[in-house]
């Protein structure tokens, strides 16, 4: 008896959970669109705003009459910073909800765990975050930066006179595939620039690490040996204790600049940035970029955050992955209009060469073969108001090199998307 009631309770709670996690608006003749971002757990600090940005973009497209005369219907699920759950949720989106496309993932480990599902079911994923490359699936479009669109230009800047002519490099990251691969590429790149192994230090911490005392002390020790820069691929909310510790131990940007690849305006909301002025971030977009498209984009977002009563709406900011989400959804909508269908194979074909006037101030183009956007690179310095001021940028958008030439064997890889890579 007891066991039966336990089973009953279990099924009941499971169905309640399922109901709570995926909600959908009932409407006739809609196109369902999946949104797969962690709304809880260590990555929620970064991913929650991407979900809201996706909803805003969909609302805007719907206000203009939708796509091919049909309204878009968002299906939001919460994979809770839990990598296997990402795969489960994406299978649910593709098979039960039958969504036409999914916008989602932040960490590479989450993308790697959903990839087999998308390839098996021939789904379509738009991935909006800078990543390590080494991947080119026909079922994924990458609207974030590849290493040559972010990491390598950032290191080149640090080695330049304006960037402080760094001679030694402290590579600090969270322990998973993106930091490890990026650092592998960077190490090979630094070797090619004549930096010896003794001038490169590589350190990893677990997800959610919060005690950076030893690491900051080590950075200090390492920096005594010559002009040092820290290249941080720390992800999620660990960044807050890391920057707090840097400030408390008196490590200033003039002595040891930290350039971060996963810290944007959204992550800085949780930190007092006065002691951090001068530390750097490399992205393809900053909220402070001054152009009419961006002004409208930022204003729309602030109005949306206020209208929906999002937490912290009075201090709402935009950042690079939000821009990439926005661009991705618009490009997908354009491609669906062009293909006159949401069929994955037709949309994929229509996406090649699609272009969109992005808030970064550039017209971004989806490459004809490699599923990546051509993106400009910008390096920004943290200001005391939590914004970045651009200190360096490329003149033209760069074509992505997902297969980095700094990893041996990549020269034999094809420059078009193939399954199972």
């Amino acid at each position, binding site marked *: 008896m007891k066991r039966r009631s336990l089973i009953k309770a279990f099924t009941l709670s499971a169905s309640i959970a399922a109901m709570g996690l995926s909600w959908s608006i009932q409407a006739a003749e809609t196109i369902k669109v999946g949104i797969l971002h962690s*709304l809880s757990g260590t990555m929620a600090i970064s991913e929650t705003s991407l979900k809201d940005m996706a909803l805003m973009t969909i609302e805007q497209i719907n206000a203009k009459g939708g796509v091919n005369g049909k309204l878009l219907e968002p299906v939001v699920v919460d994979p809770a910073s839990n990598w296997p759950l990402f795969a489960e949720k994406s299978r649910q989106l593709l098979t039960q909800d039958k969504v036409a496309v999914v916008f989602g993932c932040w960490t590479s480990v989450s993308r790697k765990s959903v990839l087999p599902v998308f390839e098996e079911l021939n789904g379509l994923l738009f991935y909006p975050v800078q990543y390590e490359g080494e991947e080119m699936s026909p079922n994924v479009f990458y609207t974030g930066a590849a290493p040559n669109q972010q990491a390598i230009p950032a290191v080149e800047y640090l080695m330049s006179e304006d960037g402080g002519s760094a001679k030694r490099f402290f590579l600090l990251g969270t322990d998973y595939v993106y930091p490890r691969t990026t650092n592998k590429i960077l190490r090979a790149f630094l070797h090619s620039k004549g930096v010896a192994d003794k001038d490169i230090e590589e350190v990893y911490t677990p997800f959610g690490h*919060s005690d950076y005392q030893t690491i900051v002390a080590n950075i200090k020790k390492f920096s005594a040996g010559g002009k040092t820069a820290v290249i941080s691929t720390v992800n999620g909310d660990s960044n807050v204790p890391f920057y707090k510790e840097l400030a*408390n131990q008196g490590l200033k940007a003039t002595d040891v600049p930290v350039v971060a690849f996963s810290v944007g305006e959204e992550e800085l909301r949780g930190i*007092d940035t006065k002691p951090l002025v001068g530390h750097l971030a490399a992205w393809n977009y900053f909220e402070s970029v001054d152009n009419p498209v961006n002004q409208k984009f930022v204003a729309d977002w602030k109005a949306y955050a206020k209208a929906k009563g999002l937490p*912290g709406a009075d201090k709402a900011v935009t950042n690079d992955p939000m821009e990439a989400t926005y661009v991705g959804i618009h490009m997908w909508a354009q491609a669906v209009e062009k293909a006159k269908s949401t069929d994955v194979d037709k949309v994929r074909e229509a996406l090649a060469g699609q272009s969109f006037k992005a808030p970064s101030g550039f017209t971004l183009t989806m490459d004809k073969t490699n599923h990546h956007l051509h993106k400009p690179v910008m390096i920004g310095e943290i200001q005391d108001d939590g914004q970045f001021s651009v200190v360096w940028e490329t003149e033209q958008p760069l074509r992505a090199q997902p297969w980095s030439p700094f990893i041996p064997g990549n020269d034999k890889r094809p420059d078009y998307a193939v399954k199972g890579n």
Partner: protein
Amino acid sequence: MLRLLLTLLLLMPLATQASEGEFFLTAKPAEQAQLLESWAAQPDSARLPLLENLRQGRIAAEDTRKVRLNNRLRGLIDNALASHQLLSHNSAIRLAAAQQLQKSAQPAQMAFLDRRFALEVDPAVHAALGLALANLQLGASEPAVRLAAVRLLGETGDPLARTRLEALLQPNAETDPGVRTAAETSLAQVQRKLLAGELLGQAFSGLSLGSILLLAALGLAITFGLLGVINMAHGEMLMLGAYSTYMVQVLLQRYAPGAIEFYPLIALPVAFAISAGVGMALERTVIRHLYGRPLETLLATWGISLILIQAIRLLFGAQNVEVSNPAWLSGGIQLLPNLVLPYNRLVIIGFALAVVLLTWLLLNRTRLGLNVRAVTQNRNMAACCGVSTGRVDMLAFGLGSGIAGLGGVALSQVGNVGPDLGQSYIIDSFLVVVLGGVGQLAGSLWAAFGLGIANKLLEPQIGAVLGKILILALIILFIQKRPQGLFALKGRVID
């Protein structure tokens, strides 16, 4: 006429300063860098306000135009500013300037530093300037000057001195054998001092981590250790404490901005009251029905923890909230050239010890403490003697939860405040309590500091990830060997 001339004379420095500022504003970065280098070599006290303003990213206090700076220019401004501050009448400013110049002085500034060194009367500034000068004199042409510089550098514990001496000892760098041997002795001297700083730094970070673990675990030492409730919702009590801190901060910002500096102090009683209140409510409604049924308690408290997390998500959102450090908890005290003790960590160590002391006094020196110990040791006998066991249970659980709330206030000053805050500390808390020995405050104290120091000793050797795994493996082995933990309760205890 004379008056006009006088005003003109007075205005002159202002005018040159203004024009220099204008020129700087329009110059290219490379020109700006050259300008700053030349200013650093030939300081002029009239230029001091301009440099101070440049440090703030403007050319004059009332000028709204922003000067675009990068890190290289900021470094050069710091250096030029220090050069100018050496002309100050205030010896404290001169000392800070000389210390900055030890790091950043360039050979072009040598002539100026020489002059100031000869003129300096304050002994501390004189010594600091001597060191700044010695750094530059390593490149001098006369061996005697180099020898004196090398000897002087040996007196410091500065990590930069080590690098400079090492560079000197590179093959073909220093040719004079006398200077070479002196450099070798100096290097050994510096390295000894640096090693001392490093070891002290490791010990301090171990203590700091230990104090954080202790604060996280202390509440659990009462609810689990004394009452025997496997309290999976303990982490959420920490979280409630941290969110109370956030609320106090927000309310003060809105209604009493004057008191904002001391919000963590005001948050302490608030956090204690909120967590203790929630704890007591839980005890009365749920946990008291489950005494003596550990499995059900575990599931029930775990369910409560999920409910609390979700409630906080609904109230405050899933994202972390911003809890800022007040000024007196930011920054740190520089003990040795390579050892900075951050204020927030110092305060937390002191706070942890104070909370342990108070808890100990409460349990061992008050009537409530006596009752709690009596009830935990033999419930029936205590009830026979007229102790209201239900009330004692409630108060003890409230106390444990309240202390967890205090821990939450401290945690909010070092880490993130989010709905999942408790989840990241619950495992560590149980480790500390189990390792220390269930039912023992002293055990938790030793276990927390032991774990903290062991963690920090391992981390530099094998990295944070492996360190954590190794510590867990060691604890499992230890518990296998000694299930009662470090300190076992002696005497006729139940079970």
